[in-house]
């Protein structure tokens, strides 16, 4: 399959049309969306209109942009003006935002075509997309299994060929884990790399937007378009990012690949075997493997499950039935708020709001939230020390391949363990990505995670591309 880079070049050169690319994906959606349920909304007519405009531009001799005619599946927690944006929650059902997220405006300006808004765990809280108020998404590799989450819809859409690329958000692994389970590339850039204006907030000190693609080069291309400073997001980093497409071909000769010797146990043997194969593949291409320790890695899950719910309980206070979304009528405002929130939020969202409210409440703040913030510092500092010895770190992305629906039962902690290897990077604010690296149990995809320090995306992409080359060369 030609890459997004090649197809955009063909649209710009007039050797293919945006309309043709869009119709191909709409046909793929038509054929298999009933089975997969990747989307909350498919934007058939809007996509056709935009494709026609891009083709007119190309015909006039104007440049439609670096993503001309390239289709995107957008996670349904990014605002699209006049188009429903639900976060897969009843509380926002029917809401049509009065503005576009910055990433949406940037993608439109680059010639990309949004084909739909994708399903997610409600408010991005979950690791399987089973928490959606509108029903789960199915894994295209095996529809009896979950696609991962929370950005399961975007991951499944790319894996099923519904769009050239997807956008997701990653607070504790919500891009990388579903990408691994669906066999695609997924990137969580450094905190502040991509503007979050118009991304509906879950945990503001952790959330970051990133792409799902079928190749490392396509991921670099998309990030080169959406990365950069935005005055509308005060946490976006005010500097120019180097072009990542230039890093992809640079090789890994001389790079130091870190193996975390005190990584929490718990990955399945098939996943461990692929990680070992990844170390071998990089060594064969001239990199050196070095042992490092990140002792606080093991506390990541505990710190995250206080910090993220605390921030979420505050961010989700805005859903009160006043300005948008659901309202359950009641005689006074306080009972209207409570009735609306009780009816509008699903179980996992309520659980996290409760946990976060408790951790922030008087008398418990220092014991829980305050302590979690100190653990966060330990994790950050331990990573920084490791990056003094290694250019990148390699870990499993997910402890297992895609699991069957209902496998995690009613125990919230069992589901949280899915993010053991992804969460610490969000707490540190560093970069991380997953690359498909062969298959494990049941022939299902396994991802290998490449982690790098703040704004070390160029090195991270060199390593990811080397892993991809090893797979293309049959490097099992």
């Amino acid at each position, binding site marked *: 399959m030609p890459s997004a880079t090649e197809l955009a070049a063909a649209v710009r050169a007039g050797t293919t049309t945006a309309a043709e690319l869009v119709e191909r994906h709409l046909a793929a959606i038509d054929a298999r969306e009933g089975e997969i349920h990747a989307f909350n909304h498919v934007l058939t007519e809007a996509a056709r209109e935009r494709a026609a405009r891009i083709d007119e531009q190309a015909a006039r001799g104007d440049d439609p942009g670096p993503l001309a005619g390239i289709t995107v599946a957008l996670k349904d927690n990014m605002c699209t003006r006049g188009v429903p944006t639900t976060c897969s929650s009843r509380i926002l059902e029917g809401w049509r935002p009065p503005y576009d997220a910055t990433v949406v405006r940037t993608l439109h300006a680059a010639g990309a075509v949004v084909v739909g808004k994708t399903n997610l765990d409600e408010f991005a809280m979950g690791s399987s997309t089973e928490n959606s108020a509108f029903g789960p998404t199915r894994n295209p590799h095996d529809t009896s299994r979950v696609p991962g989450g929370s950005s399961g819809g975007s991951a499944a859409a790319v894996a099923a060929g519904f769009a050239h690329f997807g956008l997701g958000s990653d607070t504790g692994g919500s891009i990388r884990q579903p990408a691994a389970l669906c066999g695609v590339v997924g990137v969580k850039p450094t905190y502040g790399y991509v503007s979050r204006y118009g991304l509906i907030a879950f945990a503001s000190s952790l959330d970051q937007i990133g792409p799902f693609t079928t190749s490392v080069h396509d991921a670099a291309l998309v990030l080169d378009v959406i990365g950069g400073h935005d005055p509308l997001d005060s946490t976006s980093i005010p500097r120019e990012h180097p072009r990542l497409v230039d890093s992809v071909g640079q090789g890994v000769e001389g790079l130091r690949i870190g193996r975390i010797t005190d990584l929490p146990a718990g990955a399945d043997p098939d996943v461990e075997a692929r990680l070992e194969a990844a170390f071998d593949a990089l060594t064969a291409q001239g990199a050196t493997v070095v042992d490092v320790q990140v002792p606080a890695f093991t506390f990541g899950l505990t710190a995250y499950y206080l910090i993220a719910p605390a921030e979420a*309980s505050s961010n989700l206070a805005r859903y009160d*039935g006043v300005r948008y979304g659901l309202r359950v009528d009641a*005689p006074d405002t306080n009972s209207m708020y409570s009735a609306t929130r009780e009816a509008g939020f699903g179980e996992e969202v309520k659980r996290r709001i409760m946990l976060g409210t408790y951790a922030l409440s008087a008398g418990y703040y220092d014991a829980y939230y*305050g302590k979690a913030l100190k653990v966060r*510092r330990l994790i950050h500092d331990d990573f920084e020390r490791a990056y003094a010895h290694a250019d990148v770190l390699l870990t499993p992305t997910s402890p297992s391949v895609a699991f069957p629906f209902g496998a995690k039962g009613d125990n*919230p902690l069992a589901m949280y363990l899915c993010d053991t290897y992804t969460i610490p990077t969000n707490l540190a604010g560093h970069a991380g990505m997953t690359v498909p690296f062969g298959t494990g149990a049941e022939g299902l995809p396994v991802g290998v995670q490449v982690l790098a320090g*703040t704004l070390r995306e160029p090195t991270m992409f060199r390593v990811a591309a080397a892993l991809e080359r090893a797979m293309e060369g049959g490097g099992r």
Partner: protein
Amino acid sequence: MSDRLSAADVTKVARLARLDLGADELERMTAQLAGMLEHFADVDALDLSAVEPMTQPFPLVNVMRPDVVQPGLDRDEVLAMAPAAEDGRFRVPPIVGLEG
């Protein structure tokens, strides 16, 4: 610190969070939250006295811009999405005079 939560604690938190939890929901939530907080015991063993809390990946600096009028959201478009609006404003139930 791993003292279990009482149903009364959870009721109080639900009120703070503006959630009308039902009786069975309250019971389930009490057990689940207690289980999650017990998980925190492994952090209690750490000596964190000399550690600075980390609230953000990067130090936040105040962001200023010139005091120039910028385009805002269209009022009618915003209010069209509100559950209830009247005279160019959001409409809500009474706030004063009904609280018990």
